[in-house]
């Protein structure tokens, strides 16, 4: 992979990441994560 391609991919991915994060937070995904993470996840511990 050429250095230029790498730079372009890096910049594109980072831009997409920031946009994804902002959109994800704005539509309330962080609240879903919080809700899942503060309760015992029965599936995660092999009981659900």
């Amino acid at each position: 992979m050429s250095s230029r391609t790498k730079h372009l991919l890096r910049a594109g991915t980072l831009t997409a990441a920031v946009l994804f994060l902002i959109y994800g937070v704005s539509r309330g995904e962080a609240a879903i994560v919080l809700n899942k993470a503060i309760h015992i996840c029965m599936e995660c511990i092999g009981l659900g």
Partner: protein
Amino acid sequence: MKLTNTVKRKLIQIAAFGFSNIHLGNFKSGSLYTGSWKQFCNPGLNCYSCPAASLACPIGALQAVSGSMNFKFSFYVVGFLLAAGVIFGRVICGFFCPFGLLQELLHKIPFPKRKLPKPLRYLKYIILVVFVILLPIIAIDYMGMGKPAFCEFICPAGTLEGGIPLLLANPRLRTVIGELFSLKAAILVLTLLGCMSVYRFFCKTICPLGAIYGLLNKISLYHLEVDQKKCVGCQKCAHVCKMDVDPVKHPDSAECIRCGECRDACPAQAIHLGFTSPARASEHKLHKQHVKDSTSGD
């Protein structure tokens, strides 16, 4: 006293482990930390059902959102993973993953040591696609909710960090132990034995988070570079690599966790690890010197 890079890395790993699992008092009560920090993802793999966990597991969070009633794709978690991966790559695995540290300690236990057959490395990509991405979206119940398939059927970190401590502390939970727990306990035992025999067995074969960061390792800002002019071709770097990577041939390998052992082993100092490129840094230095010389001449 000068600390070696290996000791420095170990200290960072211990600090990351401690930060990820700071609520130790919860082990006694068998409860979880319920503060707002848990809406943020841990860059490494650490079960959010571990009583001491301070952050959310990104793989668990990804499945939780894509398996929810409202959303089938998590922009929040994918955005976080892309950002972390493109900036740091698998240095997260090498320095900041709590389960990675655990595996390295397990590998120190005297046990027959083996090399992993290379095709097994691809298993983690299959697990990522099938159990983390597809099943939570496809296998839905009558309410339209999917299951966190990787957490439920595979994740040994969840069984070790969440399942066992919670079952020990909560007698009521012990009454619902069934076949699923037996399956997960068997996977945990196999993983622990695997880690004792093969260095970072879980990272190499199972970890979907390592698979994501591995793909981003190829373009990450934190990267490994080999100065081909300095390289003497002694192959010491490849021999010392516990992730079975040849840094000269594949500096951007998806398996490289950027631990830096190859750099320390290189007799010609031909290996560079960092955010900057050594060639560009020396160009910049020369340019600065040139500007300084020309201004002092005036």
